[in-house]
């Protein structure tokens, strides 16, 4: 008799749990609390160094951190600072999508950003003012049109109250993540 009641009770608990829990797998990962470590990954232009992204993903996995890829957009002097920048977004937004897809596929949570400024440094400064993060990963580049210059990097080292990881230029930087890396229709 007691065994029967126990079996019925167990079944009832099982049915209730099955009813209550979501039908498929775990709930999506949610970023909560200030304790989550954040890795900022700023980029400009139409691509990002694959090496920089891989470094960010590796660190994020090791530290259970969130990656914050940030697209830096430059607002020409003739336009107001809050002007929409659709042409630059056409280049940068697909890169954010490609980064999100790659990182998510490896189980890393992504929380992306877009920042504007009169220069890439200015855009980054706005971002630094508004966001908190523990680490920043940047690639050094000789081309001022595609990212932060040497002087910007020096400024970054002085300005950022977080660990800065600067990847020195390398032949592997030719391998880049761009809009072409977006999987599926976008």
């Amino acid at each position, binding site marked *: 008799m007691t065994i029967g009641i126990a079996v019925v009770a167990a079944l009832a608990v099982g049915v209730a749990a099955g*009813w209550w829990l979501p039908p498929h797998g775990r709930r999506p990962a949610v970023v909560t609390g200030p304790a989550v470590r954040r890795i900022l990954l700023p980029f400009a232009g139409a691509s990002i160094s694959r090496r920089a992204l891989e470094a960010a993903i590796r660190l994020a996995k090791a530290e259970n951190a969130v990656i914050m890829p940030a697209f830096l957009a430059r607002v020409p002097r003739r*336009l107001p600072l809050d002007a*929409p920048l659709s042409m630059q977004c*056409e280049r940068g*937004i697909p890169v954010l999508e490609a980064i999100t897809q790659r990182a998510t596929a490896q189980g890393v949570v992504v929380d992306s950003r877009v920042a504007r400024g009169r220069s890439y440094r200015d855009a980054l400064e706005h971002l630094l003012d508004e966001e908190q993060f523990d680490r920043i990963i940047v690639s050094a580049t000789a081309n001022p049109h595609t990212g932060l210059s040497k002087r910007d990097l020096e400024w970054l080292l002085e300005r950022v109250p977080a660990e800065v990881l600067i990847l020195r230029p390398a032949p592997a930087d030719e391998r880049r993540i761009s809009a*072409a890396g977006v999987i599926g229709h*976008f």
Partner: protein
Amino acid sequence: MTGGQRGRYTIYLGMAAGVGKTYRMLQEGLARAEAGEDVAIGFLETHGRADTAALADGLERLPRRRVTYRDTVLEELDLPAILGRAPEVCLIDELAHTNAPGVGHHKRYEDIDEVLGAGIEVLSTVNVQHLESLNDRIAELSGVRVRETVPDNVLGRADQVVLIDLTPEALLERLRAGKVYPTERVDAALNGFFRIENLMALREVALRQVAEEVESRRLTTEIVGTREETLAEEASQAFGERLLALVEPYPGSQPLVRRAWRSAQRLGASLDLLWVKPPGRSPTAEQERALGALRQLASVLGAHLLVEESDDVPGAVAAVARRRGSTYILLGPGAPRRGLARLRTPLPQRLMELLPGVDVRIVAARSPRVKEDR
């Protein structure tokens, strides 16, 4: 010349200087002249390009009008000379040009209008950055605001728009070879406007512009001689798409916003983002942060972020969609439903019931397997 009838108008459109618009226009003029038509050059701008100048040698050039402005002698299109000569086909380069003060019309495309009105066929050229609606975007892209703009409907008035397409790589090769600008200007051009990413974006804009032009013409053609008002209304609706994306202040909303923006770009539509906030609950610090990021993203993309407080999500969405005239609603797949929530009608279905005629699209959360780099 066809008496009383307006002349045919062909515009050669390019993404930038040097793609070969003028050259192509001259080739067409020569071919027409060889076929026995009366062709004359009303105005030609060779920019010192020897190939272009050589090609023009085979055609009659009409005199230019000389105008003195601030002690400088400027050469402009001589409209009375063209109208007096009245060729069957007239080649007039750079329709976006602004005439010197004192010349009859302010802009060259207005001169062209008069030439067309005289029944003369016109072949002309323009770069995509001169179109008014694209001016801000081009300024954003290149940092250079083009002063010589033309209304977009100038393209609409043409009987034919011919896109002169060249890959950015090929254009840069021409530039380096000194075929576009004199050697001393090449470095400045390569470091300024003629950067590959600029050219790629401009090319995309030019291709899209022509595609939209073709679509617009198709709809206009359908309107003529049929149920004019109904089709005109349908045509205007086809161009008046408005997307509404349902978001929540958490990082997972950003891919949905990006996808919605991309769709809006393709449709030439406006984009609204809507968060239906549960009443009486203050956002957490994390939600505030995510909301700030969404606001920034919306602003950069030119979208509008709306926040409505309601515990009836479908009702609030439907009200906003009606108010904003939304034609598409985009939403994420949503969290798995639990408990009694499973008995409720799913949100997409409720929206379809409440908003007949509005497309509802569920944007998949993609978590692809890692592919090797392309």
